[in-house]
């Protein structure tokens, strides 16, 4: 596979969220605001790219039995960097994301990519794969957040888009709408891709 193919595959055709239903905890939790989703997406891209790279570099030295543990520790180290960076420069966002930054560690996408790709491929390819998967994840987050923030608060990235006449749909801010939005997104994409096949 060329580098471009790796990227396209992990970002779109095999997108972790809508194809494999991985990492959706945070996809649901932070998507009531676009800003939070963007920051979360960037954090995941950073962690995915570097942990993929690191795991691929040292993959021959990790004993099979403790592989998961080592991978988790590598991922956790990068997440700590993201967390400290946010705390130092964007304390507001760090606060509103709460524990979800820390929970990037247990985001199944990262472990999934480490197991499925970084364990077998070269460091550079793993990094591209990680960035691809991260971008695919971020796109899903931004799409859901766009709809939820627009209808829930009438704003986009905190700027007022819909005027005072807009009645906020508080359901959009609450938990159930996140489940519905993701389900509708998966439905939409599945029926589109099925059409192409047929």
């Amino acid at each position, binding site marked *: 596979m060329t580098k471009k193919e790796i990227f396209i595959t992990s970002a779109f055709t095999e997108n972790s969220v809508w194809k494999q239903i991985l990492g959706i*905890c945070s996809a649901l939790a932070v998507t009531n605001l676009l800003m939070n989703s963007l920051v979360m997406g960037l954090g995941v891209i950073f962690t995915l790219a570097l942990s993929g790279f690191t795991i691929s570099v040292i993959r021959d030295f990790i004993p099979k039995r403790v592989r998961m543990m080592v991978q988790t520790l590598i991922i956790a180290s990068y997440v700590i960097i993201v967390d400290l960076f946010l705390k130092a420069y964007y304390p507001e966002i760090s606060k509103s994301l709460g524990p979800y930054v820390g929970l990037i560690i247990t985001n199944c996408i990262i472990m999934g990519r480490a197991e499925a790709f970084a364990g077998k491929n070269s460091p550079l390819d793993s990094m591209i794969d990680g960035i691809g998967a991260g971008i695919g994840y971020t796109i899903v987050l931004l799409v859901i957040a766009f709809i939820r923030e627009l209808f829930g608060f009438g704003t986009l990235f905190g700027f007022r888009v819909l005027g005072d006449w807009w009645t906020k749909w508080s359901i959009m801010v609450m*938990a159930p709408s996140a489940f*519905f939005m993701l389900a509708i997104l998966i439905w939409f994409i599945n029926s589109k891709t099925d059409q192409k096949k047929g």
Partner: protein
Amino acid sequence: MELSPFIIFVAAIFTSNILLTNFLGMCSFLSVSKEVESSLGLGFAVVFVMTLTSAINYVVYHYILVPLDIIYLQYIIFIIVIAAFVQLTEMVVERFSPLLYYSLGIFLPLITVNCAILGVSLFMIIRQYTFLQSVAFGAGAGLGWLLAILALAGIRQKIKDKYIPQGLVGAGISLITTGIMALAFVGFSGVVVIQ
């Protein structure tokens, strides 16, 4: 304001259900909920691990990390505690109840990467719970998770042979079901409130 552990326990099950309001532990929730029996097994394992790791992590955080001023290492330390504890549970269960061990199978090690477990530990730190509050929160969150996965498994067994639009089969319909469950749980929200 000091909340009694009992209130936190009840609230963690119903009003702030870790799955339906905090979206934690979704992966295993969606993948293991095909049958009531296996979800029950996994649910109990989660309750057990969650209760005890929240207790252990509380002690580790307040008596090791805070005095040594290395709070930023909390993620690494917590995940190590959880992984070690899951491993320990696995060995104990295998030794004393092989039957349960085989019925749980792959689900036990999977608990390590269940974000709900780590999430409970992180929430208890952020919300500054005391020891008893943390344990009550861990147990309640575990039971809430068990309740949610049991309900979903029951519904999924019922709708298995029913007509579902093509694109929604599998994850899609489970998410919609979960959404409706979450909507139902919103009805509890006036009862007790924790953050």
